[in-house]
């Protein structure tokens, strides 16, 4: 039986990789992919806690909702990326400086 700590460490590593991807990437779509990595890490945490600490199905119910929210957010985010690409013909986030002060 794998202890809970192993799953938490794996989830922490995945979350950090997703965060690094959001900061380091030069492509808008890959930034959205890194956000999906982070959401998956959180899903793993929920399922691991639900199973190994509480023995209930509530962790998986929350994962159900997280997945729904992730799907909605990916759809809207990609629609925004499409609109941005039509405006500027580029996927480089450094090109979009209209809100810079």
């Amino acid at each position, binding site marked *: *039986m*794998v202890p*809970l700590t*192993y799953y938490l*460490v*794996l989830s922490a*590593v*995945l979350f*950090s*990789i*997703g*965060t*690094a*991807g959001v*900061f*380091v990437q*030069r*492509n808008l*779509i*890959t930034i*959205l*992919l*890194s956000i*999906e990595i982070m959401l*998956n890490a959180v*899903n*793993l945490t929920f*399922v*691991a806690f639900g*199973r*190994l*600490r509480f*023995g*209930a*199905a509530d962790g*998986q*119910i929350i*994962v*159900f*909702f997280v*997945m*729904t*929210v*992730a*799907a*909605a*957010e*990916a*759809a*809207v985010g*990609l*629609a*925004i990326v*499409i*609109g941005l*690409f039509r405006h500027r013909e*580029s*996927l*480089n986030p450094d*090109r979009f400086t209209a809100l810079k002060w």
Partner: protein
Amino acid sequence: MALFYVFAAISVLASLLVIFQRNPIYSVLLLIASFGALSGLYVLLDAPFVAVIQIIVYAGAIMVLFLFVVMLLNAPHEETVYDEHTHPLMRPGPRRFGTLLAAVLIVELVLALTKRGESGVSPGGAVISVNTIGQLLFTEYAFAFEVTSVLILVAMVGAVVLARRDARN
């Protein structure tokens, strides 16, 4: 126990490669591999329902949507146009610094998570069946379930409005 290490290694390696790829299509495909490994981890955690909907929803719908958008915007060719006036944060120096910060975050999280000893309690023995999840979802979490349907409707309308062409003339 060995399966945990295999799946964990695959998911971490695939996620690492996702953020270091030039071509977005490779990133999407590597992320699908990572999701497959995560699905295996869910099976190890006695959560077959979550494992299956991870493949169907994440790898089968969301990643396909990403692939559509990547191919619609012709994103692989985007990287060949190299920008001379690169933002200072994106030059190799600060980029390495960002990676170092991520490594520090990993070490910090691991230390924080392994401080407390394992209490040894491992409750529950049966696999959580779809029956159990369905009963919980429609009784205790019924309100949240209905709200997510509204959320999906709003997201659908929003995505259509945001992505359409302005043909108002």
